[in-house]
């Protein structure tokens, strides 16, 4: 990463941290803010957060790496979170998952080489009677079947 970029991250983190000044337990909300703005919480962000909140880098890194939501590299342009939990499994989730991954040409947990889409597992979206379910760029999609719904997701992701 270039120096300028690192400085930009520092400035961003400083601004976001200032907005949360005085808030107790501000670390998690701050990390959410950073990921929202930057699309990632990388090493430069960790260093900047540590400096802002007067914590050690190891402490901040420990928190970042503990939570599944924080990513070191940005996700693809489109983000598909597919539910893998039991209720969706009971409705054929595993077979649909394989078909979806094949149609989107990306393995579960990966970002496609062209950066167009990230497919990730999620464990329950609270839509458990109408599965298999996914969030596609934050929008809920239910009753995903082998054909129509997968094609719709593929079309969204192609855009």
């Amino acid at each position, binding site marked *: 990463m270039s120096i300028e970029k690192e400085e930009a991250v520092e400035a961003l983190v400083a601004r976001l941290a200032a907005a949360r000044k005085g808030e107790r337990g501000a670390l998690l909300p701050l990390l959410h803010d950073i990921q929202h703005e930057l699309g990632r919480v990388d090493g430069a962000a960790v260093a900047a957060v540590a400096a802002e909140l007067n914590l050690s880098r190891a402490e901040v890194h420990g928190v970042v790496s503990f*939570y599944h939501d924080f990513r070191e590299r940005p996700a693809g342009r489109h983000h598909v979170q597919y539910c893998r939990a039991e209720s969706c499994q009971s409705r054929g989730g595993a077979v649909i998952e394989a078909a979806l991954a094949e149609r989107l040409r990306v393995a579960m947990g990966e970002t496609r080489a062209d950066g167009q889409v990230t497919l990730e597992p999620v464990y329950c979206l609270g839509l458990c009677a109408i599965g298999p379910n996914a969030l596609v760029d934050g929008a809920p999609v239910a009753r995903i079947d082998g054909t129509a719904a997968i094609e719709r997701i593929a079309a969204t992701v192609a855009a």
Partner: protein
Amino acid sequence: MTRVYISRDMASVALGSDAVAEAFARAGCEVVRTGSRGLFAIEPLVEVETAEGRIGYGPVGPDDVAAILDGSHGHRLGKVEALPFFAKQQRFTFARCGVADPLDIASYDWRGLKAARAMAPQAVVDAVKASGLRGRGGAGFPTGIKWQTVLATAADEKFIVCNADEGDSGTFADRMLMEGDPFCLIEGMAIAGHAVGAGHGYVYIRSEYPYAIDTMRRAIELAASKIAPFTLEVRVGAGAYVCGEETALLDSIEGKRGQVRAKPPLPAIQGLFGKPTVINNVLSLAAVPFILAEGADAYAAVGFGRSRGTMPVQIAGNVKNGGLFEIGFGITLGELVEEIGGGTASGRPVRAVQVGGPLGAYMPPSMFHLPFDYEAFAAAGGLIGHAGITVFDDSVDMARMARFAMEFCAVESCGKCTPCRIGSTRGVETIDRIIEARALPVAPAEAGAVMGPGGALASYGPGLRRGDGVEAALGSRSPLRLDRARDKDIGLLRDLCDTMKYGSLCALGGFTPYPVLSALDHFPEDFGGAPALHEAAE
């Protein structure tokens, strides 16, 4: 102008309610967006206000507007509350959900909070105790006793924390309530604040519920003047299942890794930021306004044994009439699955249900006589947990479900206890071996010969260890040796479950054995054994 009601619950939106709402708005109707009524088979659902009351139509699409408005649509349901699915319910907590605009603060009466504030704190705690309300998450600990401890502990500052992070598969009541009637939860928390002397509260919501986060934030803003001087804020989780454990959740709010704390000290004495803290889940806190508004007796009058009041049961998975069904304790599992739920969506026979989320036991239909009651479930080796019921048809592979339970534990373990962190990974490997062995042909006569207890203790050849060519080794074994290896693995799996059960600090490691052992006990044939004698169990 015709007024219509259409849900904007995340599930309804997933089924297409936004497009339906837009179509009605284009047709010149006044569209009120509500929470979900809770029966997904009739969604997207539209209710049209008429002289005789609200008339429901569902499921409908955006092209159905004209036929609905002139009353000719084929999916006319009449009054929704008169449908059998709703007529049988006792909606204490979910009375407004699906009926009212969740953010219409003018129509919300705050009767419970007003009643509470007219009482001394101790009297409020006594009312909650008298209602018999128990924590609607895990073991069913009496809510009033928790509150009493916090009230009795002197401190310069106390907190109310709502655990909205218990995202168990098969449950959606928390999400539906936060989206469909957020003021109810806010009111419950404000009442708790008055009862124990806490000035500030946190609602910790899992990030997988984006709609609930948004609705709660807006509702808190709207309600600020109603609940003042009590204040509230939303904190968003970050995808760690273990933060649903109350002490891990407190650490997470403090900005740390969500690791489970050893108890004591109890959070009620030394909780968030070291201060006395009430930590309850969504359904417990949302039950409180009813108790204060209608009286503890009205709540306690319903229920079964020591399980008082109602439970919002969530019927999920491969089921025809999936949805939210709030009812007094005591209804049987079979009534919920077969009568209310209508059996499987696939039309195949029900083979198993998992009750209580990913850490709950799998139960066969031979256990459907069980009444929904904390004690009855515990005695049968299960738990009610969040009262989610996930239905599976006969295509389910129970060994794979057991494997999933171990895998989930391995993914989500916070890493503090070895049995949970390492044991779950060993569990996945062990079940993998069992599944591999199961797939190999076994001569029927020999298989029968070793299925008895005598076959279990054959020594374990070095060639059978994972990682040095299991498949090749297995392929060269005789069926008899295979069965012995399998029995040995099953013994290993049981030992492992035992170690996890007793050597884990929290429910993730401690309860993962429930789905695994129940699958093994009730469905041994999926692990390559002889079927269990289900009928004999009754």
